[in-house]
């Protein structure tokens, strides 16, 4: 209860959650709101926004309903964001935990490996992976997951390292608890909080990454994605600005909401640190 109270006190976090709920709602309701495929042209091209009730956000270069594209795009963005973040967590958390707890040679080797990945420009690697493996949902999720895991591994390793030298963990060793038991009951519960916070922030970066890939034309050609929509409107910026504007704005709102919620989570789970914000 304490946690929820702290979270609620943060206005930004509340706004973030509300926006997120709205986005999720739109995503879930997409088939009901716009049952037709967003790829189908439904009116004349370059219809301005806020003019026609049926096309509240206008239409694009091929006469497709922008609002429909947005709503369907929400599903795509959220889904790819969440799944690729899970992939990154599945790779990064165990790697970081093992490195942090084992120490010594294992830690060194794993950290060199992580450093290697962090030196490679992540967006460039994602482009290369998706281009080579051909743009489709699977390769996109894999590529994003593969470039996003290093910070998670670092975080988990850092947490586990600091916990390993904490006296209550040492006490657990002296009373004879087995190593797996120590990791599960002493170490991991105290690392869950930062992992959750980082995870929520990562969903935002995953969405940014996915939309950037789609903008460059590396999106799954069957999925209407916000990034693709921004890219599609590039050639008519001056006279049909809304085609690029609304999808980009949707990305901005969603990522902002995720960041706000993530920070709210952080403050709620670490009340000591919130003090710094005065």
């Amino acid at each position, binding site marked *: 209860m304490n946690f929820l109270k702290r979270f609620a006190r943060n206005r930004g976090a509340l706004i973030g959650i509300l926006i997120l709920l709205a986005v999720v709602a739109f995503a879930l309701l997409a088939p009901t709101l716009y049952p037709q495929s967003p790829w189908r042209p439904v009116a004349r091209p370059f219809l301005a926004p806020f003019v026609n009730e049926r096309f509240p956000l206008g239409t694009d270069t091929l006469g497709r309903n922008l609002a429909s594209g947005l709503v369907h795009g929400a599903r795509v963005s959220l889904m790819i964001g969440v799944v690729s973040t899970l992939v990154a967590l599945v790779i990064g958390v165990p790697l970081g935990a093992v490195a942090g707890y084992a120490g010594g040679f294992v830690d060194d080797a794993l950290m060199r490996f992580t450093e290697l990945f962090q030196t490679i420009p992540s967006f460039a690697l994602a482009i290369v992976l998706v281009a080579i493996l051909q743009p489709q949902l699977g390769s996109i999720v894999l590529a994003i997951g593969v470039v996003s895991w290093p910070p998670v591994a670092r975080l988990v390793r850092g947490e586990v390292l600091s916990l390993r030298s904490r006296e209550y963990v040492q006490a657990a060793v002296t009373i004879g608890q087995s190593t797996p038991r120590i990791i599960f009951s002493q170490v991991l519960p105290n690392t869950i909080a930062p992992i959750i916070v980082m995870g929520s922030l990562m969903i935002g970066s995953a969405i940014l990454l996915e939309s950037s890939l789609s903008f460059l034309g590396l999106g799954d050609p069957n999925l209407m994605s916000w990034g693709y929509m921004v890219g599609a409107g590039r050639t008519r910026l001056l006279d049909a600005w809304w085609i*690029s504007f609304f999808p980009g704005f949707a990305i901005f709102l969603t990522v902002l909401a995720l960041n706000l919620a993530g920070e709210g989570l952080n403050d709620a789970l670490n009340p000591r640190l919130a003090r710094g914000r005065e």
Partner: protein
Amino acid sequence: MNLAQFLAGRLVKGVIVLFAIAVLNFLLIRAAPGDPAQVLAGEAGAADAQLLEQLRARFGLDQPFLTQLWIYLKGYLTFDLGFSYRQQQPVLNLIMERLPATLLLTGAAFIVSLAVGTAMGALAARRAGKWSDSLITTLALAFYATPLFWIALMSQIVFALKLGLVPNVGYETIGANYTSLARALDIGQHLILPALTLGLFFTALYARMMRASMLEVAGADFVKTARAKGVSQARVWRRHVARNAILPVVTLAGLQAGQLVGGAVLTETVFAWPGIGRLMFDALVQRDYSVLLGVFFVSSAMVVCFNIATDLVYRIVDPRIEAHA
């Protein structure tokens, strides 16, 4: 360890990284659907059967795995990054032509974002709790969530097309044939919008980090000591708080090198900036995989050099580093 040892160690590490990337490139070529020869030829050469035969022979594609790997890596050692059949030029040449433009763009974006970001963050920390702090923090939050390609497009519309303040696309005014100073100014004008939009995300990041770092350092014991000596508030913030708070931000900036280089791809595409990012985009569209992997390799090399540079700066700025190793 001293400077020479440090440099030697980092260079060795850098070479290992580049070696790993070369191996990765090799594996990616084989992982791509289709025949490796077709991948190397790119879409332009895929139809030419004779070309494919030549490639097979040259890269020993019918030989054992390790031999192929060795042949491929040998190419990198002799600075041969492949050949673009579409452009009919060695990949290395294509890249070298465009590298300066990208260095200029990323360099400018880095410096501006670090300078403006830390200044804003420091200001927000000093005015913590007041409206100027809330404003800066909110802006930072917003820019941190802004998709780069979108803000690039939007600022193109507003500042270039509608308001005509800066040029819309390109590196310099074509056909104007400026020389030295005039040319530099012209390029500078073209640089403004791309550099600012590329750096926007990082400006926000450094502002947030600097603010948090300053607030944390402000509570440190040595700050209390300085105040107890009668040092003025302004000087305490400058010489004690900011000077120490900036250290983790510099470290962070170093880690962002990879992101910066990656973001250049988007910026150069939107603003038609003639750098290696644009080259990568064209290679994507043209399915010219040799160029794609070549740019990937070079951008990684850029990041390695950049990391070494920031580590050097950090060593200069933090006197404790010599003692640690």
